[in-house]
Each structure stands twice: as C-alpha cells, then as structure tokens.
C-alpha cells in the first residue's frame, strides 16, 4: 500500500501542477451559467441543444448591472465593464439570435445560435479577432458578413462549436434571471483531465 502511495503521489503532484489545476477548475466552472441583473428587459425565452429556441425577450442588459457567472466569465457589478447584451425582439421572433455584445461592437456571442435552422435567415458580423485585413477591394462597406449558420464561419469558431448544445432559460421584467448549462464545456472538462484542450481555452488564468 505504501509503495503504491509513493508512486502515485508524485504522479498526481506532477499532474497537479499549478497551471493544470487552474485549467481544470476553469473548465469545470465553464459549464455553468447563472446570473441576475437589471436592464430594460421584458420576456421569457429558452433554448436547448441547438434545436429548440423559443420565447420572446427584448431589452438591453448592461454587464455593469449584472452579478453571476456566464460560462467562465464572472460578473460582479463591474462598473468598468461597458459591454451590454442586447436581445432584439425582431430577431428573436425570427431566428433566436441572442446576447449580441453590442457595446463591444463584437457580436461574438451571437455565434451561440449557430445551430438554428438556416431557413430563418439571420446573420451576424464575423467579428475578426486575429488582426487580418478585412477591407474589400472596392466599395465603402465591409462585405464579410456571414449568415450565422455559415459553415465556413462555424468551422473557425471554436467557442461556437463548444456552445452549440447549450441549454438556457432567461426570464426578465426589468430584473432578469439567466440560467444555463453547456454540455460542450462538460466534454471539454472531461477531455481536459487527460490534457486535451477541446475548447482551446487553457492557460487563461
């Protein structure tokens, strides 16, 4: 028994290097979404596994007025956080596009809805993050907008791939409650135990 311990402990300790433990903790917490906040919100909506997206919700939700956790992002009434999630009523009716990161002008979380039916025809900005030349040869408009179900965009967006199966519900009337669970992040956590980083998010902390 003692010999087994003697061999197991160093192995565990090696695995349990500081960064490894941080990444596993982060991956574990990435599965959950629970936040409350205040905003000009009105409505109820739910989505599940990229198949069902229902309800009507409209309003803006400033991150600075929110408390909670959203798939790895802590929110604590942080005054300097200028981001605002925007639920657009018209889009909800037609497509279920959620959580546009309006104030950052980054429609990043719009990719959450990447698995909705293509026939619903909604589209989001491609939100480049890699400092590439996004300027078309002609004209004075950016032409790189993608339909949110665009396979080419989906193929390059790891976050969208991991979160495509999220289960979420939001209810709000000025004050809102937002809960969710990400099966994709569970898979990332399990794979992370054997040091596979499916979500590409290790090393954040």
């Amino acid at each position, binding site marked *: 028994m003692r010999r087994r311990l003697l061999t197991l402990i160093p192995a565990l*300790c090696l695995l349990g290097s500081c960064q490894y433990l941080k990444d596993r903790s982060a991956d574990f917490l990435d599965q959950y979404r629970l936040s409350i906040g205040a905003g000009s919100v009105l409505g109820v909506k739910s989505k599940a596994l990229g198949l069902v997206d229902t309800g009507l919700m409209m309003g803006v939700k400033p991150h600075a007025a929110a408390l909670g956790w959203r798939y790895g992002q802590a929110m604590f009434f942080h005054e300097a956080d200028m981001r605002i999630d925007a639920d657009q009523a018209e889009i909800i009716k037609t497509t279920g596009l959620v959580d*546009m990161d309006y104030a950052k002008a980054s429609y990043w979380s719009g990719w959450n809805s990447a698995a909705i039916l293509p026939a619903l025809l909604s589209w989001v*900005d491609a939100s480049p993050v*890699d400092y590439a030349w*996004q*300027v078309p040869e002609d*004209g004075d408009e950016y032409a*790189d907008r993608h339909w949110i179900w665009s396979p080419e965009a989906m193929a390059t967006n790891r976050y969208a791939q991991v979160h495509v199966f999220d289960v979420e519900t939001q209810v709000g009337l000025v004050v809102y409650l937002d809960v969710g669970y990400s099966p994709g992040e569970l898979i990332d956590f399990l794979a992370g135990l054997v040091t596979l980083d499916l979500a590409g998010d290790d090393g954040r902390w």
Partner: protein
Amino acid sequence: MVSFPRPGRPKGRPLLAAAALALLPALHGCLRPDPAPRFTPAWEHFDPAEGDWWKTDKVLLVADCQLHNLWSDALPERNLSSEALAATAIRPPQLDLFAADVLEWILAHGSDGYDAIIHLGDALDLACEGELQAFLEVMAKAGKPWLMAPGNHDFFYFGTYDPEDKGLWQAACHHSGSVLPKDRFVKLYVAALLREDDPSLAALAAALGVEAPRERDLHEVADDLPDDFDWVRDGGSGVLRRIAWHLVPEEPWRSYVIQEADMSPDRLDPKIGRQFVLLLDSCQYQRRPGLIPNGWQTFPLVLNCGSHGEMLPDQLRKVRGWIDEDRATLGPVGYAMACHHPFEAMAPRTKSSLGWLWREHGLGMLVTAHTHKGYFAHHDLGTENDRLELNLGSTTDWPMEWRTLQGFARLDTKQIYLRAERHTLVEELKQRDGYFLEAWEIPRDARDDYRRYKQGHAASGILVDFALIHHITPYWLPQPTLHANAAAIETETQVKDTLLWTFFRLLQLFPTDPGDGGVAWPDRCANDREVIERIVQAASDAEGFDRKVALLQELQRFERTRRSKDPTSGASTDLERARYKLSQAAWASRFESSRGRRLSVEDELIRVDWERTVDPAVRSGKKTGTEEGARDGGGR
C-alpha cells in the same frame, strides 16, 4: 550513561522528498516570466544635446477641449440623472466658460518650444458652428501650424449620434450658429487650414484653387471646396504632406478626412528616412450612429460614437495606398498613427484591419484620445514585438493634460528614444506666481459655487423616456422627440445663474477700466455698477431663462473687450484677471473629477479648515494654545 540515537531509516522522508520534487513542476507552472516589452520606461540620463542624435520635429499634442455652447437651451441630456451616469454630461459652468482660455494658454506656454500642433479631436462639445468658431480663434492665436484628427463631439449631437430630427441639436446650438454635421465640419476645418501660415498649406490652397483664403469669409471658402479630394505635396516643406477627404452630405457619418503630417527634421538620414504621422478619422460609420440599440432592429446594428470608433474600407484602403506609395517613392519612411478613439474602442473589423496595417507595415506608435484620462497601452498583435499606444487626456477635464512628442535615434550606438513629456495645467501654473490665490477660490455654497447646479432635482423619468423612445419604440415608427423636463430646465437654469454670478465676481474682483473706450458694454449699461445691477436682476428672475441667456451673451462680449484696472492704484489687472480665469477652470475641473473637494494622490500641500479643526474656545481666544497643550500633558 551516554545514549546514542539508533541508526535506521527515518520514517516519512521519501514521501516528503517525493512531494518536494513534485512541487518543482508545480512551481514552474506558476512562475511565468513577465513579457519583455519593446517599449520600456527610461530613467537613465538622456540629453539629446550630448552626442550625434537624430531627431524628429517636436509636436504639441492636445485633445478633448470640449468647447461648449454656453447659450444652449435646456436639453434632455443635460440633467442630474445623466450627470450621475456620465460626469461630463454637465461640467461646472466655470470650466465651460474658461475652457478656451485654458487651451489658449497651453498653446502659448505649454512647452518651451515646439514645431507643430496636432489636435486629437473633440475640440467641440455639442457640435455647433459657434463652438468651432471659438476653437478656430484660439488655434489662430497659436502662431504654429496645426492639424487635427477629428473626434465624435466635433460633428455628432453630444458626441453620441446623428438624430434624424435635428430639433434637439438646434436647441443645443441656440445662439451659436447652426448644427455642424460632419461634411460641413470637414469643409470648415479645411478652410481654416488654408488660412495657416505654412508653405504646405499654401500649396494646398493653390491646389484647391483658393486665392487669398485669409481675406475671405471662412464659410465662403468652405462652400467652394469639393466633396472629394486627394492631394500630395510635390516637394517643398511644411507640416502637411498629404490630405484626402470624402464627403457624403446625405449620409455625413460616412464622410472622412485623413492627413499625413510631415515631422521629418531638416537633417534627413537615408537609413532612417522621413517621419510621418498618419492622422486617421475614427468617426466614420457605416450606419447612422444611434444612442442605444433599438429593440426591434435587426442587423445592421448602429454604433454609439461615444462608445466606438469605426473606419470604413475606403479610408483604410486610402491609408494603405499612401503608405505603399510613400515607401515606393521615398525609400524608408517611419510612421506614427493618430486618431481620436482608442484602439480598444474600435469596431471589430476596423480594429482587425488597423491592427493588420499596424503590424504588417511596421508602423510605430498610435496616439489616441477620447478617454479624457490618458495612459500607455502595449498591444499584442500576434508578433514578438508589442505595439505602443499613447492615449492623451483632456485639456479641459481632469487631469487637464497635454504632451509634447519627439523621437530621437542614434545609429552609431543603436539607441532610440521617444520623449512624450506630460504636462498638466495645475502643475504648470503652480510653478508660476500669481495663480490659485486663496481668496479666489469660490466658497462652498456661494452663488457661483462650482457645483451649485447639482442642487436641483434628479430627472430619472427622462432616462425612462430615453429607453422608451430610442429602444422600445419600433424603429419603423416615427421617432418622437424628447424635450427637457422640468428638472432638466431647472438644472440648466442653475447653470446659467452660476455663469451670471461668475461674471458678477469677475467684475467685483477686477473692475473695468472706465477710461477704456473700446468696451462693448451690455445694453443699458455704461459702468460696472449698472452691469452688476442687470446681473442681479437677471439672476433673481426665476422665469427669465431667455433673458438670462441674452444677458450672458452680452456679458461674454463685454468680458472679451474690456480692460480692467485697480481703482486704487490705477494699475492694469488684466494679467491677474487672466490668471484668475485659469485658476477657476482648474478648480472647477478638479471639483468635477473628484465629485467634490477631495484630495487625490498628486496633492502635496493640504489646507486644513481652521474653523472646523481647532477647539472653539481656542479660536475665540478664551483659551490659549499653550494652556491647551499644558492640560493635555504639555510639550506635544
């Protein structure tokens, strides 16, 4: 009997050793080296006079003067609830009143010597022609060539959006000319450039076919300018090497103006090449900017100009073309970039493309403004080398700062320095005599107290109205116009009253020289006493908002034309009056930033209120300080 420890295997030691060994990789995981930036603070001795240093021109950088139309109507945006959300919604009246004096002083005394001025935008506040006129008058006095990268407050209502219904914007610009959409601003700006005494700007005037621009009306010159223009200097010298603008009158937010400033020294080095600053326009938007997103609107979403900057493809293509062409024709060229919005505040595709340009073309420092705070930022664009951004604070809002910027290089020792000397108004004035006299500071609760306008009522209902009109009302329905409510009118009235009492105090402290014949006295006044009577009468008139504004306009003209002198000694007090105004602006700015008379980290000398500190008995003389000390144990 002597006993010795028994030899044998100590228990637990291998376990401890294994744990200790295992900790090593754990520690390795935790101990990450700091990144090694390319730009680091230099604390060593540096004197460009020692050694063979090559240097660029020295540029004075100023930004965010926010010259405000003092005569505006009451506006829904200017209320105490908005003020609670954004402190600069309403500034202390003394700050608005003397902001132009501050800018004028900075341009005249802000540095020991500089070659040109670059203004990083937000010269105006509400985007009115009168504000621009005041700004151009100050810049003309500088006697140095100047260029500007425009900011959101220069041509958008309140710096945030471009309303379809111009009613509110016109109310904001009441008594200050018409509203200033972007296309009009650009033409007036270019017309003002043509008046400067600089060979490159004279060449630009010739290229535009504008003759004697200084002798012609600014608006007339602006009217003759084309909507599209692209010019490069053919040899010669001067501050401007290139300029291009594209104006879209029907959608002014799509317009842009960009420039290439020449900061090359007289002595060119072929290995270093010429040094240019690209003045970009971060206020060019694809869609009409909006205050907040409309809840019924799908894509494209609108941006709020106060939150985000954007540059459209036509502008970025033009800049890239300039760089390629310059390097093809001139050989090595070094570039810095300047624009109003910080890099982090750029819309995503703009940020991506600008970042690519910055990285792939090896451009140097990016200078920005907009935050009113000022900072340095290191950006990682995906290469080993970090990129440096210098963000400049406001000349009006605290810390009332400006900088000079100059580059130095030495080829033999392979050294490069950037000197970005930071100046703040208060520190500069404290080094001079005659500023911040204790008797000048406005007492708390005086009628012209810097923050007296805060005594009104909150206008939270108006914020709900904003949400209803801008967010809840479907965008396809006619948008109702929101007007100032009673609380907002009360606050604006208080602002006007504070301005009146500020003029009152100016007259009391610095009486007008009665022998000066060139004074534009207010109507029905021929001496200070009569002016003061009119001020008291107007300030006491609770219902007379328009009469207050009318008198304020007269007082402003009066103040600009009058000379003051000490009635006892007969000596001129014009200099003291100018110092008083700068002191008032600084106090007001500080009170605005600290939300009251609070200390901040840069303060060194602290005044302690005698009345509220010392025992009343000691104060009244019934008990001496010595007796007090003896009672407490003596000698302390």
